[in-house]
């Protein structure tokens, strides 16, 4: 159908617009969403759909998520915004103890499947400790919720719409550094991209590389470098859904290549790469030619002035890949 040039925040607006148009129970709320949001994701929606459907809440993340759960419990669609993923922690109890467990603990008498929580995520060049975090690992440990991270505007709209329509509470992290920087032709009409399905962006035979969000673009570049400088053929996978994650696609790839590199901005220890690594060594032990490599942020809070040294950039990924090939 008809497409339009959209950046990431515009693709989010488009998804929300589609959702509000299609589902009369849907409401969008959070801090500062009424005027359009600090990242402009909700621009125009209040004028179009009314102040009872697109509205500000007080400054209180535990309230925002609790409130969203309550809306969803009645069967209406709740789309909550947390202003930065770094500030999601006051809502951790509501997410982990309540949203994730609503259906299970009630024996399926009640659920909050109509809840979606969106939050800007990841490094942005100058965000430091509290405007750069990637907290997906905290939520990966929580059965009952879904965690989704898009790499681009086209992916974001389809994945967000799937989250909104999915009958389980979902957390959707949006790579803020891509809000303006990433631009694509995106369909104006709604479409869905399935959850819990990783995407192989590029097939290869020597090494599998897995990432999500912004880091997918880094490993894509590393794949090109590896081909040019080392003659190494890389298979590049965007995981897309962190929970429940697509073990089949990743394991199938590593069974073929024998080598796996996983990369994320979040700190190494307990980061989601650990879960992937552990699963792959269980499923593909005899296929492995080298230890699984994780290229991640250091085990520190996210620094300000030292960001260029902190992030798992293409040179670190390339170096890790080279070591794996030479193992």
């Amino acid at each position: 159908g008809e497409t339009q040039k959209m950046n990431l925040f515009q693709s989010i607006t488009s998804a929300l617009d589609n959702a509000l148009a299609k589902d009369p129970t849907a409401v969008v709320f959070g801090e500062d969403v009424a005027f359009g949001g600090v990242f402009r994701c909700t621009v125009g929606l209040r004028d179009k759909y009314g102040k009872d459907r697109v509205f500000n809440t007080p400054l209180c993340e535990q309230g925002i998520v609790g409130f969203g759960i309550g809306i969803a419990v009645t069967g209406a669609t709740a789309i909550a915004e947390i202003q930065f993923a770094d500030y999601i922690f006051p809502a951790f109890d509501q997410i982990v103890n309540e949203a994730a467990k609503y259906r299970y603990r009630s024996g399926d008498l009640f659920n909050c499947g109509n809840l979606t929580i969106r939050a800007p995520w990841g490094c942005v060049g100058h965000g430091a400790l509290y405007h750069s975090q990637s907290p997906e690992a905290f939520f990966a440990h929580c059965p009952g919720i879904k965690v989704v991270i898009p790499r681009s505007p086209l992916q974001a709209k389809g994945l967000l719409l799937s989250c909104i329509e999915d009958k389980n509470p979902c957390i959707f992290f949006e790579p803020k550094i891509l809000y303006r920087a990433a631009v694509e032709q995106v369909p104006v009409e709604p479409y869905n991209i399935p959850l819990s399905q990783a995407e192989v962006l590029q097939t290869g035979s020597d090494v599998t590389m897995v990432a999500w969000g912004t880091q997918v673009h880094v490993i894509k570049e590393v794949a090109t470098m590896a081909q040019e400088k080392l003659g190494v053929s890389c298979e590049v996978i965007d995981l897309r859904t962190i929970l429940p994650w697509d073990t089949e696609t990743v394991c199938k790839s590593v069974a073929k290549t024998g080598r796996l590199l996983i990369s994320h901005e979040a700190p190494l220890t307990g980061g989601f790469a650990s879960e992937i690594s552990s699963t792959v060594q269980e499923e593909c032990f005899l296929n492995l030619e080298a230890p699984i490599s994780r290229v991640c942020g250091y085990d520190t809070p996210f620094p300000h002035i030292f960001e260029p040294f902190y992030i798992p950039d293409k040179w670190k990924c390339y170096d890790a890949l080279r070591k794996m090939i030479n193992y």
Partner: protein
Amino acid sequence: SPEERPQFPGASAEFAERLEFIQPNVLAGIPVYRVMDRQGQVLRPSEDPQLPKEQVLKLYKTMTLLNTMDRILYESQRQGRISFYMTNYGEEGTHVGSAAALDASDLVFGQYREAGVLLYRGYPLELFMAQCYGNASDPGKGRQMPVHYGCPERHFVTISSPLATQIPQAVGAAYAIKRADANRAVVCYFGEGAASEGDAHAGFNFAATLECPIVFFCRNNGYAISTPTSEQYRGDGIAARGPGYGLLSIRVDGNDVFAVYNATREARRRAVAENQPFLIEAMTYRIPPPPPQKKKNRFPWFSARFSLIGHHSTSDDSSAYRSVDEVNYWDKQDHPISRLRHYMARRGWWDEEEEKGWRKSSRKMVLEAFERAEREPKPPPRLLFSDVYLEMPPRLRRQRAELERHLETYGEHYPLQQFQK
């Protein structure tokens, strides 16, 4: 002139030229609204809601049936038949007075000590017990500890253990209900201890700013486990916080079913008509169960540190923190059940004969339901795995298969005989 008034967006007020701190007036606090005295005598006839006899009998029978069910299930916990229980002694008035004032379809979010609301709405004894036993009839599929009831047909959201989490949820539900239906309210129950949680603050503030048709109902029973109210707050209870958020607020005698009824009824009516939240603080007292005859506990990890008498719950011994005299006063001098009975007796609606007959028949009903619950098997172990998501993810399906295989070899070490296949 307009320039002389403060122009700040944050508050509309006058200027003051004298330095004066507002005194939080704890000694002369918000008064306690009541309809009856402690002997069940109506003080002002105009305040008597004049409920029809059948409804008053229903209030009484619900409270006493709850009391009877509590005694039997509390005892069953002490005997190790169920793992845990929470009684409602002393607070029955807060449950039925408020439940009677609501519409049947008003959505209820509770904390864990509101079983009388569900009982008033007709939830059968069998299902209370099935949940406590976690047996195959439990609509909750045996997932939670006892007393974590839920019933969509009766608009009672399933209880969860974390305190106060239901408060902002109730507000969200009220917001959605406001958009969907012009004549439905949400009622949210919580204790005075839970009101200290951040979620309570969040809920009150959201309800007011987003104009939600919700009645917040705080059961102030004097204790949060062992913590008395003097250690829980320093202001004038919970009712005094309401105005700080912009909530219309009232404090009532929670042991006076008609006071509870009147306040809830009016709050509910106005919440829906005006789309604004109300706060009711019902003062009451948490009475510990009578001392048990025997102690045999199959679940020592709950009560290992505590001795005989369960109080906050079966894992608590409140003789460690309150005096016999205090407890006796509430049991004997100011109890919601006896106050209503006096009211009924005065009108010739109840007598000793009726009382004896009802005690016998209610106990029989409870014991029959209890015996049936005792005999029922538990649900099949595979129900451990469902409802995590709407659909079962592949990994979980594999884990379920793993357990099945494990039980094939090691099944003798598991209590399989208690469970359905």
